[in-house]
């Protein structure tokens, strides 16, 4: 079973390799976890693979270092349910951590995995079987990039009843560098008709979520939260999951909210991702409906009364025609 954790990042094509297991002359790295002394978990760590970075190297600014982790997991036939963490670090600073959950019901083994990072956001997938190949990239931590000698290392831990046969780290795993830093989110919010509203009016809230950076932001939740006694959202849902927000794929949406109550209610508009979570709060002032006749309340009632009267009158006319 071969599964990419997510679609390979398009940015990866623009990355320049710095070090990989293949460049270090390694075909693969095999990790077989062993029980910790007190038996609470199993653990294995690879050798340290050294590489050098030039003077003045640092993470960020014009150059961003990216960790690439490509590995295969083989779960033991007698595994129970549990969790497996596979990570890649440089200089003992972790830059990629993929977590797998093993579920076992009778003889069926279910593997699900998730990751958290600045390239793919949060991603979760699953498969039925004992083997899976996963690929991931992440913007490295600051302390994992330094001039001079560095070392690359891989680690696996199994918790609960999880039992592993082995983990294989493939030779394309390593570090690349790129001019593209992590994506971020900008939020722009406007609302019509204005800050002063009356009960019964419709408030149109427009949100624009953009990513000014070259690298897209993935796994974004965008939307609004509001007091349900103060507003009714006419075009739900209030939240939406966006696979990606990028320069070429900004997100724009208009929310229509009917104003229900007098006061100073708040509406929070925002976006949530690993990369950024911008928010804006709108606090309109709501007064009672227009003085005098309240069309929004009485128009439907008047319509119902008139319609019913017309139907009854029509029937009477027809009844008169028959008699």
């Amino acid at each position, binding site marked *: 079973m071969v599964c990419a954790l997510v679609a390979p990042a398009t940015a990866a094509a623009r990355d320049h390799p710095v070090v990989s297991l293949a460049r270090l002359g390694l075909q693969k790295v095999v990790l077989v976890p062993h029980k910790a002394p007190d038996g609470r978990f199993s653990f294995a760590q690879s050798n340290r693979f050294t590489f050098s970075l030039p003077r003045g190297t640092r993470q960020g600014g014009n150059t961003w270092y990216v960790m690439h982790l490509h590995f295969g997991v083989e779960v033991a036939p007698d595994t129970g349910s549990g969790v497996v963490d596979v990570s890649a670090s440089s200089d003992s600073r972790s830059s990629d951590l993929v977590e797998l959950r093993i579920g076992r019901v009778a003889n069926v083994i279910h593997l699900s995995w998730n990751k958290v990072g600045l390239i793919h956001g949060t991603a979760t997938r699953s498969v039925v079987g004992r083997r899976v190949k996963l690929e991931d990239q992440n913007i490295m931590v600051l302390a994992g990039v330094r001039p001079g000698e560095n070392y690359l290392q891989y680690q696996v831990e199994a918790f609960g009843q999880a039992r592993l046969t082995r983990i294989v780290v493939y030779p394309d795993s390593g570090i690349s560098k790129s001019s593209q830093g992590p994506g971020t989110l900008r939020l722009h919010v406007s609302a019509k008709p204005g800050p002063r509203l009356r009960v019964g009016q419709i408030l149109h809230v427009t949100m624009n979520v953009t990513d000014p950076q070259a690298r897209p932001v993935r796994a974004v939740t965008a939307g609004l939260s509001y007091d349900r006694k103060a507003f009714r959202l006419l075009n739900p849902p209030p939240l939406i999951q966006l696979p990606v927000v990028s320069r070429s794929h900004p997100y724009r949406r208009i929310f229509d909210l009917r104003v229900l109550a007098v006061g100073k209610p708040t509406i929070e508009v925002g976006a949530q991702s690993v990369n950024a979570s911008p*928010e804006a709060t709108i606090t309109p002032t709501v007064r009672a409906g227009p003085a005098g006749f309240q069309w929004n309340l009485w128009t439907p009632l008047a319509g119902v009364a008139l319609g019913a009267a017309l139907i009854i*009158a029509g029937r*009477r006319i027809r009844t008169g025609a028959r008699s």
Partner: protein
Amino acid sequence: MLHYPHASSLRRRVLGRTVTLLGVAVLTCAALVAAPGWADSGSPAPTIDPPTIVPAPPGVYPDKAQGQGQGSKSGPITNVEICPCEGGGGLAWIVQQKNSFRNFDFQNGPNESNPLDWPVDFIYLNNASISKVQSQMGMFLPCQTTGVCAAPMYMHYGIWSSYAWVTSANMKQSLSACTPAADLHQRIYAPSGRFYSTNWGYYVIGTTHYDYQELCGGWSGKSEQAEKAVCQDGVVALAYTGGACYYNGGPVLANGTATQNINGHYWMNDGTATEALVN
């Protein structure tokens, strides 16, 4: 000359049907007007000032600075009143690069109007995940899923959204209620099993306290002492994979409290978190 004896009746039937149809049409219109989606025109007015949101720089954003710093949340926070916060501390948003979380957890449910439970006083960082911390710290805090050990609390981690809450994972020394000895209890939080930032790596946050004669009229709290005790445990528990623990070696989270027992809720915190390095 042709004679149509039923012409008058026919006209009345046609008229009757027409009136009925008109009534149905009016009813339909009334239903459409009442249905969601109908918009009164409203008077055109200037658009509300459009805020452009710039990500907040790292730091602490107290709620009392409402509307000033990016990342602050409007609205009064009444539950701060039950916390004898001191030294300028109080409920605040901690903005850590692009992540954010509250510096206290909440009781009863994912709602900011609920009472505060305990101050955040622990950061497990570098290569931490909820599962890993629970497993490694399980050497000293093995009760994690049973009875009072698993009593959940709640962390609000996303500034903007009422939806961005996470329920605690628990680690406790002992299940025994009414124990005459103090019982260490730590709750840890992170969405999707861990946060990530380029300066802390993969991290989870925690609140720590003792339970003394729990459910038997005792008290809960003394977070500062509990934080130190859990860190001493962490020095041993995290060492197998090369980890370490530095008591009060973490960031200032502006959640210091007076040492005060308020109805069994024993506040005690210096406002500086412990850093636990997890490999």
